[in-house]
């Protein structure tokens, strides 16, 4: 498997958070993330964007979701004010240590490999279809 877009900021500087002993998942951020995953049927937290992914695994997840054939919401962790803190907060929020994270109807289904598997099996589409009115 090729990792074509990899090599960009893998080690984001963390001075802004180094002083924070507590969790980067503040109540405000938790609420923001909760609203995001509940307010959108399909959400992809990724490194980079679907057009310009910055990690091979994020790329794979985006391509899997492209195949679903409906728009999805994406969040580029590197576009956040403090990417390193945001990534750690996401890990805590999803109880899942790696990126990307794919959320369907407010539920984390997993990273790129689970997403790909569920798109190929049609299970993800089924989860989405069940939400249609």
């Amino acid at each position, binding site marked *: 498997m090729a*990792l074509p877009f990899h090599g960009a900021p*893998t080690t984001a500087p963390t001075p802004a958070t180094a002083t924070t002993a507590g969790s980067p998942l503040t109540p405000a951020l938790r609420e923001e993330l909760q609203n995001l995953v509940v307010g959108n049927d399909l959400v992809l937290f990724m490194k980079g964007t679907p057009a310009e992914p910055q990690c091979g*695994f994020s790329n794979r997840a985006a391509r*899997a979701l492209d195949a679903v054939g409906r728009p999805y919401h994406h969040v580029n962790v590197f576009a956040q004010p403090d990417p390193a803190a945001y990534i750690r907060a996401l890990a805590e929020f999803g109880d*899942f240590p*790696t990126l990307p994270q794919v959320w369907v109807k407010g539920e984390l289904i997993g990273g790129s*490999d*689970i997403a*790909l598997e569920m798109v190929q099996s049609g299970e993800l589409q089924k989860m989405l279809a069940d939400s249609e009115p």
Partner: protein
Amino acid sequence: MVDATFIAATVHLALPEARVEATDLTGGGDHWRAVVVDARFEGMRPLARQRLVLEPFKPHIASNAVHALDLVCRTPAEAVAATQRPPAQP
């Protein structure tokens, strides 16, 4: 430096009996693919399986020693079935 033995040993912290095949995807020691086979996956959803395996990796992922881990978690029966068909391609 993370190597295949380290990956397998870390998986074994969560699942001592698991069969682990770790592959270094880039040769850099930080992008791994691991196929983990264990009977305990029986009846577990994919995310639950990954959470179980990823638990002991959390500090290594947080420190970026392991930057990416592509995990395939299978029951012994699924592992047998997987050898009988070509692997899924993106």
